[in-house]
């Protein structure tokens, strides 16, 4: 079936593209735009590995059709750092030893970024709540939560 034209802003750059309606935003980002920092795991909205920001709100890109991104602004993990340099939140992840295999990390960082944008000074319980949609099988939750708290203190 025919493709649908959309105009979507990804990491600040506006793009006009045609996408097949049966393409998820996740596949669009990874396969079409080669933005492979956003990860795919469960494809069901259960793991959070595919988390991106849509108009500033965290969403699972596997649960969204790319066509729904029309006239919206998408930020991926690639859009957080400038010239590959980590921002303060990413730095906190490194400093606190929150990164093990790293596969869940882009999603964790995006979820944390969203959490801090809504609640700049969360409690530990709020961090645990806010990140509960992001699975980490390496089990680095303690360090991940510490990193978010540290970034919050640093005022990111």
């Amino acid at each position, binding site marked *: *079936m*025919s493709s*649908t034209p959309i105009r979507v802003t990804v990491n600040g750059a506006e793009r006009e593209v045609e996408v*097949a*309606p*049966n*393409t*998820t935003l996740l596949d669009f980002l990874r396969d079409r735009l080669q933005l492979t920092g956003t990860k795919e795991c469960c*494809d*069901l*909205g*259960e793991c*959070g590995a595919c*988390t991106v920001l*849509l108009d500033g*709100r*965290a*969403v*699972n890109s*596997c*649960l*969204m*059709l790319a*066509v*729904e991104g*029309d006239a919206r602004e998408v930020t991926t993990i690639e859009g957080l750092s400038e010239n590959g340099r980590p921002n303060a939140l990413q730095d906190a992840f490194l400093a606190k030893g929150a990164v093990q295999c790293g596969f869940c990390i882009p999603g964790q960082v995006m*979820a944390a970024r*969203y*959490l801090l944008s809504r609640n700049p000074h969360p409690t530990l319980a709020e961090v645990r709540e*806010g990140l*509960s*949609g*992001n699975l980490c099988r390496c089990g680095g939750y303690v360090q991940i939560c510490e990193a978010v708290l540290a970034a919050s203190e640093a005022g990111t």
Partner: protein
Amino acid sequence: MQPFAYARPATLADAFALLDEHGPDACLLAGGTDVVVGLRNRTLRPEMVIDLKQVAELQPAISEEGSWLTITATTALAGIDEDQRIHARFPALIEAAATVGSAQIRNRATLTGNICHASPAADTAPALLAYGARVNVASARGTRRVDLDEFFVGPGKTVLQRGELVTAIDLPIAAERRGAAFARITRRRGVDLATISICCVVESAGRTVLAYGAVGPRPFMVADESGLLADPAARDGAKDEVLRQLLTKASPISDVRGSREYREAMLLVMSRRALRASLERLRAA
């Protein structure tokens, strides 16, 4: 995902036209958190996906008119949580909505979608039932209102007819004081589908409404009109008697989340707890 066509109508009239044109091959999309999973698992194989998010009449909004609070069909669960009127008037709905998936899910999933999916375990259903919600249904042929209690037919089934969609959910604004609580049992503390869920609303006049999810083919509600459940002086044993009687309406099954027996037992345990919390809140109100 199979190929399908995608449309984004700008008005309700356009949406109805598409619905009528494609009949059973059309699928409505709001938040997409259930629909996209269905498409991925190929349990949904529509020819046409109709995205309702641009429909002018359905733009996310929560409004009050007279004694009703109205939540439009594309309002996301996060939007519910961000509304102070709902916090003040329907706190158990806030509690229920907060248990639906993760923050990411709640930024997309809509209250209306949670209801239209008609999962027996839909977490917002018990709260909406207990608060006496009604559903606004519209089609090219007109509009109608359905009490939420009559809206659910069975797992995945509602009274919606071909060509109809839900435009909004209304909640009655109570004049009197009340205490309400939502509770659920899950397999883990993090995001999970409910093994059972329950919402209790105690009105200051003495009526108690209890609504349940995941313990029957559809969410349902029961009421104690005798005032005994709301009576602070009533003995626990007497309350249990009333609860047991009310709970005969439940018909839980065994599945991967829990056995029938466990669900039956938890109905009573959680009903007591929700009732107690509601009474405390009523007192504090």
